[in-house]
Structure formats: structure tokens, C-alpha cells
């Protein structure tokens, strides 16, 4: 399960936010204790196709783990992972 504390063997994940009234990329990283299987299960729940909605001036998120990156809808994040995503969102910094 995911814990907010970094431990040996933890996986590094990165939340990237794009889009907006002026297009800005923001990112935040965290090390979380999550197995590849748990991550796959999480991504299955939260992945989405941003091109399908194209909200005018909307923001979009993607989650990077290792070399793979997946567009995600963070509103669909299950309760058990909400604290992690909430922390990541609060730590988003502009990518210069």
C-alpha cells in the first residue's frame, strides 16, 4: 500500500500538470511505497483521454512512473491514494 513516507525500494512518481489560460507546465515528485501491480490498478481507475474532453482553458494531469507516462483524471483517485495526490498537487512547481 501507499505510505506518505519514503522507504527503501520506494517508487518515484511524478505528477505533471499542463494547460490553462496561459499554458504552463507544473510538476511535483514523490517517493511512494507502491508495487507495480498496485500502480497498474490505480492507473486503470484514473487514466483518461484528455483529447476527448478538451475543456477550454482546462488543466490536464499526467502521472509518470519510471519511463511511462499516463494521462490521468485526478478526480477519480480512490480515497486510499488521495493524500498522496493532494500533497503532490500542493507541491506543483512551474517547470522553467
Amino acid at each position, binding site marked *: 500500500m501507499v505510505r506518505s513516507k519514503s522507504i527503501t525500494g520506494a517508487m518515484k512518481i511524478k505528477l*505533471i500538470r*499542463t*494547460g*490553462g*489560460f*496561459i*499554458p*504552463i*507546465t507544473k510538476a511535483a515528485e514523490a517517493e511512494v511505497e507502491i508495487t507495480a501491480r498496485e500502480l497498474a490498478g490505480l492507473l486503470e481507475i484514473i487514466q483518461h483521454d*484528455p*483529447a476527448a474532453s*478538451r*475543456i*477550454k*482553458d*482546462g*488543466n*490536464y494531469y*499526467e502521472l509518470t512512473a519510471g519511463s511511462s507516462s499516463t*494521462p490521468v483524471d485526478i*478526480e477519480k483517485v480512490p480515497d486510499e491514494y488521495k493524500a498522496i495526490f493532494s500533497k503532490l*498537487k*500542493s507541491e506543483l512547481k*512551474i517547470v*522553467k
Partner: protein
Amino acid sequence: MLTKLMESGNKKIADLAINSNFRSFRFRNDRIFFQQSSLHEKTILGLIAKQTGKETMQMEVYDCKQKTDFTTAALLWDTKTNQKLTSVAGKNVIKGGKASWDFYWQLFGRNSVDNKGLLLKQYVHFDKGMDNAYWDGRRMVYGDGDGSVFTSFTSDIDVIGHELTHGVTENEANLDYENQSGAMNESFSDIFGIMIKQRYNNQDVKKSNWLIGEKVMIGPKYALRSMKAPGTAYINHPELGDDPQPATMDKYQNLPDTSSGDWGGVHINSGIPNFAFYVAAFNMGGYAWEKAGRIWYAVLTDNNLAQNAKFADVKNLTIVHAEKQFGNNSPEVKAVKQGWSEAKV
């Protein structure tokens, strides 16, 4: 059958048949004409009455309380009860929403974003420190800003007008949100957003600084966009660097059609048609909404504006509508041509 009757030896029957055929021909052609007429043309012809006087705007303002769930947002204000407000963001969106609604109603007889009196729903204090505003197809949503680069996205009327105009565009040409058509979608929002602000502040083309979101962005030297000089809204910003907007077509940026590529640079390349509008409006003089605004509105509501329209298509339509409204070789037509020419489209 009708043809046979028209050729009838009985004059009375033949006359009736010819009359009937003529009426049928006129009806068919009238129907085709009116089907092909734009909203603007219908308004000019009096087919849609230009509403005056009676207030019909319907608006609701909700407080998201820094959460992202619309279902838990609290109603702050609505037109029916007109509650007293303390929320600055709430007051801002009421002011901006009303200025936008009035603009479309009083100038074009347009009743709300869908021209059918759609209830305007505005949500403030969305998410924690969200540095953005957007239109999601049903509502306008505003964040409070991160407090360091951006303040509340409700701070500028042009931003509110911009979002509301996305709703208008969606109900009219519904321009595809990618590449040139997407940049036009953004440009229409900036163009009407700035005119809504100019009209609210009673600014003519010379008095206006043509900046979008100058209060939203923290710092006196910064704004979100400049229509007068795209690419100069912020320079050497400690966090954002330089404004990436081009002003001319030779600087058009080919970006990927992805969210990280800004859907092909819709907020970047919009600088080009924005600049064309600025030059056209400035050369016409007076208030931008009186002439240039009418031309661009006629284009936005023209059935000939395709969903995937490119800058050149919009250029051609603005010339057509300038000629229709002001006559061939009029100063207004020249101003429109000059605008696109300076933008190198």
C-alpha cells in the same frame, strides 16, 4: 401534376396552378435563404428581435470552498434572490458576468451564451490555489491563484468575458480546439473579452492598453496576454520567462496536438489573429465594439465559418462582412485588410 394543371386549357385552373407553383418556389427559396443566414443577418433583418429594456439575465454564483466537487459547492448568489455578498471573487464574477451578458444582449440582441437565455453558472474559489479559469461546456470556473505569480482569476473582467465567449463560440461555429481553429477559438474569446472590458470601462481603442488579465498576474509589468503587442505581456518573468505569443504568421509555432503542446498552440498562436483584430479596430478608431466588433461577431455567427477554419478563412469572412456592413472600399474594409496584412496572414 402541377405542371399538367398549369398547361390546362381551363384558364382559371391554369392560373391557380401557376400561382401555387410560384408561391411554392418562393417558399422553397425563402427557406433556403433563411437557413443559410447567420444569426447576425437574421438580427439585421428583424427575424430575431433585438431585445431592449427588459432584463432577462439568469445567473448563479457558487462557492467551491477550495474543493473540486461541484456538487458540494454552496450557492452564494443568484439573480432571483440577489443576496448580499461579502466574497470579492463572487462580486467580481457577478460584475463581469453581467458586463458580458449586457454586451451580447445590448449590442447583438443575443440572450446569453446560447441565445436562448441559458442560466450562467459561475463557480469561484475552485480548488486550493488554482491558477486558472476555464469553461467546461456548462459553467465558468475560477481559481484563487497561487498567490505568488497569479491572484484570483476573477480579478479581470476580460478573463470572465473570455470564458463566457467560449460558451458563445461553442454554440456558434464550435471551432475545433486544436491548431489554427483552436487558436481562433481562443482569439475570439480574447477579442470579445477585451471589448467587454473596454465597454465596461468606457475605453476607446486609443485609451485601452489591450492587455488581457493585467490584474490576474501579480506585478505591474505583467499581464496574461497583450493584443497590441503579442509576445510582450511578460518579459523576463522570474517564473514564466518570456511571453511566447507570436504577432505574425511567419512566427507561427507548430506544436503537438496534445495537452502539453497546448493542443497545437491554441493559446500561443492566438496572438496572430488577436493582433489582426487590434490593428483593424485601432485603424477604424472609436470604440472597438462599434465597428470591428460587429464584423467579428458576424463572422463568429456565420454558418460559413467551418469548425476547422484556418486564419485565412476567418480573414476572408471578416472582409466579406466588412463589405456587407460598410460597403466595398470603405475605410472599415481597408482597416480589416490592413489588420490581417500586418499579421502577415
